[in-house]
């Protein structure tokens, strides 16, 4: 266990950033998201949840994949460069840290996504325990411990000090110069976090019946009509979600060629399943149902029972009309039909 005064963090960040890129929760125009750090940026480790999750760092909202350049009768093709250098993501909460493992199950299986894989191989994750979980948090339902957030190293804020415990060699190398610390105050902080986690209003959701065996019962449940009624069909829930991984690949006409890019897509959008023949989902009910069936039924039935939700609660806090996965779990969970 190492420690550093919160006042001295800027120096630690500067040291890390002198050799590699550093991403941290940074405030811009009043909102906090993960951005690349430099000395003029305002880091907000006190903010529990960034608006968007930390997944951007590994799976950015937009990225170029390929460029075609047409000259006369020749076409030149260049693949976009992949990440080649190590970088650090600092201040990732336990929920977001788990989301990377879920994204791995999508992007690192055959066919492997080399752009994502390169970033994962080079990313060093420093997590931060959740000092004050919010009412929207429900990570403990998915076996996540907000007091022990994992990653290459974990950090805890106790008073004016930041304690860091490395879990891997890469994590240890980052903080090798910091002074050694006694772990007892961190143990007390962990106990406090766990005590709050137990009192969270959504701490004990009943996920019984969300599995492949009950797929059709869940799909046909009449409750979807009522649950989806107020859905605006916006993409807020999907874009703030750490585990939503759907994307679109499109070509941008540059005038003398094409830039092929990938961007996040949302199953809430009307053209999400648009195919040459037709669109298989006609209504917002169908789109809404897809999002939750994917997270709570399809994903676990293909991935050893792991739900594609980490309980970060961003959808709970951000849905303009207060629809969310907790509402769905409460309406459809706890029964085997």
């Amino acid at each position, binding site marked *: 266990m190492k420690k550093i005064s919160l006042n001295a963090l800027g120096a630690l960040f500067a040291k890390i950033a002198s050799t590699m890129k550093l991403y941290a929760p940074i405030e811009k125009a009043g909102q906090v998201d993960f951005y690349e750090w430099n000395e003029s940026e305002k880091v907000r480790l006190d903010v529990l949840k960034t608006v968007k999750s930390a997944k951007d760092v590994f799976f950015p909202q937009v990225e170029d994949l390929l460029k075609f350049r047409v000259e006369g009768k020749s076409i030149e093709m260049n693949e976009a460069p992949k990440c080649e250098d190590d970088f650090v993501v600092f201040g990732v909460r336990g929920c977001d840290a788990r989301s990377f493992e879920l994204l791995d199950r999508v992007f690192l299986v055959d066919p492997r996504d080399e752009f994502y894989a390169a970033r994962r191989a080079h990313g060093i994750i420093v997590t931060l325990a959740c000092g004050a979980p919010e*009412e929207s948090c429900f990570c403990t339902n998915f076996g996540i411990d907000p007091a022990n957030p994992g990653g290459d190293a974990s950090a805890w804020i106790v008073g004016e000090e930041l304690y860091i415990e490395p879990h891997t060699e890469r994590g240890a190398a980052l903080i090798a110069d910091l002074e050694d610390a006694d772990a007892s105050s961190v143990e007390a902080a962990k106990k406090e976090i766990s005590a709050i986690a137990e009192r969270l209003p959504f701490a004990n959701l009943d996920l019984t019946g969300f599995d492949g065996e009950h797929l059709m019962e869940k799909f046909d449940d009449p409750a979807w009509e009522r649950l989806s009624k107020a859905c605006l069909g916006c*993409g807020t829930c999907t*874009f703030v979600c750490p585990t939503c991984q759907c994307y679109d690949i*499109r070509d941008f006409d540059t005038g003398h060629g094409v830039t092929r890019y990938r961007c996040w*897509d949302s199953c809430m959008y009307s053209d999400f399943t648009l195919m040459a023949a037709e669109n298989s989902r006609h209504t917002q009910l169908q789109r809404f149902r897809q999002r939750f069936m994917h997270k709570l039924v399809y994903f676990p039935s293909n991935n050893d029972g792991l739900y594609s939700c980490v309980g970060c609660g961003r959808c709970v806090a951000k849905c303009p*009309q207060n*629809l969310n996965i907790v509402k769905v779990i409460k309406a459809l969970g706890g029964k085997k039909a």
Partner: protein
Amino acid sequence: MIERARELLASGEVNRVLAWEKGENDFDRTPAVFTADNVDSLVYDGLCGPNLSKYLVGEMEKEGKILVFLKPCDSYSYNQLATEHRIDLEKVVPIAVGCRGKIDVEKLRAKGIKGILSVTEDGDKLLVKTLYGDAVVENRKEVLLDKCLACKGKEHVVECEVIGESEDTTEGDKFGIVAKLEAMTPDERFAFWRGELSKCIRCNACRNVCPACSCVKCVFDNPNTGVANKAAADDFEENMFHIIRAFHVAGRCTDCGECSRVCPQHIPLHLLNRKFIKDINEIYGGYQAGAEIGQRHPLENFDKGDCEPSVVHVRGGARK
């Protein structure tokens, strides 16, 4: 309200009711359509921020009449949608409900109140229960939604039955913030909007909630237009989206403020629209979209008193 809704359902005058229900958190309010079976779970209080008017567009395809409860500011959106023939007045029974401004839970959070479990109103006071103890907000006006700071007044512009009293929650000049932006140098103003608009994640919540954005299919959702940009070609494109959208709804925007309420990044989008409203007021005389059904707004109308485009261009052109 529940009683009145039950009466109208029982008499067969309407077959469903558009109102609000409680969400998962005690303080969450979600628009919902009720029938006689579940109308008892209807809720109306200081947390019912969402404007219901646009939901009527989707209800028009169904059989029978629907009862809708309208707050004073929502009644402007209702009239505007009726003007644009997006709602059929024959199929709606509106009832006006009183409003004294709606609470913005995000503003409670901004005050440093964490882990909110419930919000209870006690006159002008708010009692907030949280995971970390209780808090009291002495004056609810400190935490009203931005839209309530530019309240259009307690008047309901839809002629119908009224339940409950309203209050005008505006203090001071509702165009004050716009005037501040106008007073900035162009570079400062550019920096302000770049900072705000660059946070956009293009979730389209502002567009989807907007009662003036009532196109059946948005040009940006149609892959055949060639402009359906799911990704920004450069870092100004998101900024442009909002500017274009503000132009598109100019003259039809009632300043209902839903765009800013729903923005996950807290971009003050309503200020773009309010700037247009201020300009229209100054150049063409006072105009309020949705004040009555069937109005033609100044940008689609012409009268001989209109100032010349050149005057509009240099500003300050007095109306004759």
